[in-house]
């Protein structure tokens, strides 16, 4: 595990949240933990920006929230990817791939 966690690249948190929810419906904390795990500890989104992203995605109709009981008998809001969200995820993934490859090419140029 690297000793320092970095900020998520600006503008990509929405995409990461969508990706996480594409695997299974999850609550806020679950999303945060999953992003941390999947990035192997590089990204550790704080609660403020995470919930801001969730609110934004919900308002854009990309995810839906629903209150459900958790394992320890409390309730939490679980988020699900909508159809529109799924489409957005695939288009953003494609775009990201294109841009990342382009940036890599520029940085590797000698």
């Amino acid at each position, binding site marked *: 595990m690297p000793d320092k966690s970095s900020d998520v690249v600006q503008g990509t948190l929405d995409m990461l949240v969508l990706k996480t929810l594409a695997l299974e419906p999850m609550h806020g904390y679950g999303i945060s933990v999953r992003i941390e795990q999947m990035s192997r500890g590089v990204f550790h989104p704080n609660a403020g920006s995470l919930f801001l992203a969730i*609110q934004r995605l919900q308002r854009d109709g990309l995810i839906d929230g629903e209150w459900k009981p958790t394992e320890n008998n409390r309730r939490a809001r679980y988020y699900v990817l909508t159809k529109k969200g799924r489409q957005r995820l695939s288009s953003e993934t494609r775009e990201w791939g294109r841009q990342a490859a382009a940036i890599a090419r520029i940085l590797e140029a000698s």
Partner: protein
Amino acid sequence: MSLLRNLGSGLRSLFRKEQVNRELDEELGEYLELAAAEKMKQGMNRQDALRAVRLEGGSLDGTKEIVRSGGWESVVDTLWRDLLFAVRMLRKSPGFMLVAMLTLALGIGGNTAVFSVMNTVLLRYLPLPNPQQLVFLRLPNGPPDGVGTTGDDDKSFSYPVFEALRKEHAVFSDLMAYMPLAVDKVAVRIGEDPEEAEGDMVSGNFFSGLGVSFTRGRGFALEDETAHASVVVLSYSYWTIRFGRSPSAIGQTIYVKGVPFTVIGVTAQGFYGLEPASSTDFWIPLQNRPELNAWDEEPSQNTLYGSPKWWCIQLIGRFVPGVTQSQALEKLDPVFQSAALVGLGTPDPKAKKSILAFSSTQGIQGMRDDYQKPIQILLAMVGLVLAIACANVSTLLVGRNATRAREFSVRIALGAGRSRLLRQMLTESFLLVAGGTALGWMFAISGSRALAAWSGVEIPFVLDSRVLLSTLAISISCAIVFGLAPLRSAVSVPVGVTLKTSNATAYRDQRSSWSGKVVVASQMALCLILLVGSGLLVRSLRNYQTLPLGLRVDGLLVFGTDPLLSAQRRGKGAFLSKSACPLACSSRR
């Protein structure tokens, strides 16, 4: 779709704030719990775990604030709260509020009133479609010698000239003729009630060519002109005053100098005719009866309808799109010159030559030349008044905020951002300006009514959208100036210093007092200019009053009569001999 969703969700957080807040609380609380549970699994006790989570992710309240401020509704919410707070702050000092608002209202109101007068007299086009294409025809040299004229020599044409020019369709899509039935009003009878009204005789294409629309009925056709039909069109305001906007007015009979006319139409609201500074009540087609001669003129050889020597017709033309004034003059001048000489025999080559010219239909014809300078000077003066009002209010605000420095410091110390304070001050000044503008608008309405009554212009000085926009622009710039003027002194004060000093020894910054000095100095300068200007004005008015006339004025009585109002020439003579002679005789006693 997503816009609607966004709107709906935002509105929900605005109007069901409690529930939305509770849900956010619960969701974030759950987040905290889960994060803490994770730490506890690693062996921390509950308190340490909660503390660690807060240290990592910031406080719960901070997070909530971040999430809440993400949507558009938070902007509305803070604006609303700023507004309420500003109202509260202003109510705390009602004297300040009253003085500031009144000062602004006077400045803004004066500007709006004068601007609306300027708009009507100098700028406004006739309320007709494509008014830029319309021009009045003029004769700067007057008509040829030896013809009957009306006194309005520079704008009256003969019938042959009108007939010749209206055929020039390459220049004018329409050329309209109009002439008043009398200098002022003519005798009119509706049913049994005799009264006086202002009427014009117009060509058949008058309404269609100008593009006047109709509230009721129709306008004239060319046949009405050639047949000299007995039909009449009423203006909207005459219809309102005389018929109470009754639809049954159409078809009624109006007697104009005893000649019956049938009402066939009512023009749209806002069309006052073409007579300068007065509103026309009705229009009839051009008439050839001697009793309906133009200008109420006694019919003679030189002054009868159709006579080439009777130069009484006023003309307004609508240019074909794309035709410029110089092109038009080039084409029209030869036509005009030959038509002008019809019926005059061989012209004396030494006699003065009439020349054709155009005059813009912007503003009120005739008044534009006379009043352009005075109105512009007046506008400059009220502009200065507004500048002084602005300076006054901003010094008031600076002074007020200096005494509030402590309050600002406390708020900064409690965690208010400087941008938040700035917004707060802007809101306060916007509120002041809004109040001032509303008051000023009321001043402007009564002021422009007073100006209209004083000047005798019957066309209302409408406060139209341009006036509204200019006032808004003035007030918004005021708001920004006032918002920013006290800004430096308030925000640049170091918190600690103000908090440590007592209220009595208020903190004074060298720079802020410098900017205050600039404001005061410029204010004094402006006041001095205005004072000198108005002093000179009053001085010259006094001179007019006390100037020696070169004759003995004691016991001298000046009076005027208006014999033109009586319908007949013979009546005028009788009026003069009956009323003027006894006066002359009695004054001799």
